[in-house]
């Protein structure tokens, strides 16, 4: 037997109280698909596991009267993929969740766990960046809201303090006419890791000339953290999507991202793939924006 403690939290309050008591020595576990890999590899020997997978308030998907989507941190990727509410208001999230790993990982892995892992190859953070999501974080005395765009700080490092728990993600209602899309390149259809490049796009077009009025982009596999490419977004605002725009965009994008090269896929190759995937995803989001119904096709 190990000397690992285990707490099956029933409420957010209970989980946060345990975190405070543990003083940085505990790990939150939800689906466990990431932590168990580290444990199996001998890289992590936890001294205290706080299980939040059965906390009711972390397991809800809600679309409010204002159209905002709230997804509890312990909602699984399968539940996101199957949600008709999410598919109706933000199809990009459905596409994103459907393409994660494969079914048996989707059935355990959670949106909150994936975001808090902050793996640069992960898919949910990329969607959150494009949608300018807000992360509601529970701490010992209060909750606070952290924008997704300032949550990812360094490799596997987030803005969460050691006594804080991600409670839910909040995505504002897409404005009418907004188009969203998620695109991904992976050498293997399922379970790919090192070659994966992903792009999430949310865009609104000017009803007059069809140029991009507003845009949000997230990129995966393009650096040590999930990337929010501000320069590329700035460049695209006010432009129409055509070959000239894509050529200029590529030049800016490859400067703005720093993919990690490995023995199979060089950083330059990943830069190229990122520009191709972003271009394709932009085109799909643009087509959907024409429909003018919040991203539906």
């Amino acid at each position, binding site marked *: 037997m190990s000397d690992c403690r285990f707490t*099956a939290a029933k409420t957010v309050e209970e989980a946060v109280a345990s975190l405070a008591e543990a003083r940085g020595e505990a790990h939150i576990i939800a689906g*466990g*698909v990431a932590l*168990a*890999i580290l444990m*199996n590899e001998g890289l992590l020997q936890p001294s205290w596991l706080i299980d939040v997978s059965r906390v009711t308030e972390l397991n809800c998907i809600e679309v409010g009267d204002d159209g905002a989507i709230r997804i509890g941190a312990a909602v699984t990727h399968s539940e996101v993929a199957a949600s008709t509410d999410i598919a109706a208001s933000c199809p990009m999230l459905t596409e994103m969740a459907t393409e994660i790993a*494969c079914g*048996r*990982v989707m*059935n355990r892995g959670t949106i909150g766990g994936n975001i808090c892992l902050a793996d640069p190859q992960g898919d949910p953070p990329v969607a959150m960046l494009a949608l300018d999501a807000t992360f509601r974080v529970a701490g010992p005395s209060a909750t606070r809201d952290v924008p997704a765009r300032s949550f990812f700080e360094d490799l596997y490092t987030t803005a969460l303090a050691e006594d804080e728990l991600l409670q839910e993600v909040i995505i504002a209602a897409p404005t009418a006419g907004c188009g969203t899309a998620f695109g991904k390149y992976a050498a293997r259809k399922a379970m790919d890791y090192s070659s994966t490049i992903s792009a999430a796009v949310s865009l609104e077009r000017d009803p007059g000339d069809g140029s991009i009025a507003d845009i949000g982009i997230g990129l995966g596999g393009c650096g040590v953290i999930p990337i929010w490419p501000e320069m590329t977004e700035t460049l695209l605002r006010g432009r129409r999507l055509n070959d000239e725009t894509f050529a200029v965009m590529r030049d800016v994008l490859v400067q703005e991202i720093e993919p990690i090269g490995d023995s199979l896929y060089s950083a330059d190759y990943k830069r190229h793939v990122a520009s191709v995937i972003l271009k394709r995803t932009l085109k799909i989001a643009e087509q959907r924006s024409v429909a003018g119904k919040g991203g539906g096709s």
Partner: protein
Amino acid sequence: MSIDISLNINGESHDLTVDPTETLVSILRDRLGMTGTHKDCCMGICGSCTVLVNGRPVSSCLLLAVQINGDSVRTVEGLENNGTLSPLQEAFLTFGAVQCGYCTPGFLMTATALLEENPKPNCAEIVDALKGNLCRCTGYKKIIEAVQAVANA
């Protein structure tokens, strides 16, 4: 720390005292002698340890048993009924979908869950459901044909 849990495995109740860090696959194989569930990559990549928890496929190498207290687990040992193989197991034999056999339990459990949720999947749906399971004997074609045959029956 040891924790008492109860699991329903293939219809039989098991009361177990587990360490919080013990994975389901270790408990099945090392504690209960149920070696039909195979342990290979231990990273969730290969699919050979797939079992059904509350009817849905999961990687038992990435699942801490302490987290599923009270849940029901189905393993490959639970597919046969009084010595009679399930139609899917029979189809795997008929179509030669078993070569070395290492990946077979994982494929069987993944495909069993698919057929229970969607009894008449088309080829694309079968391929999509099985995309997370690896066969290193490259027997995918026969595996897909076996699942298709059960769907068409």
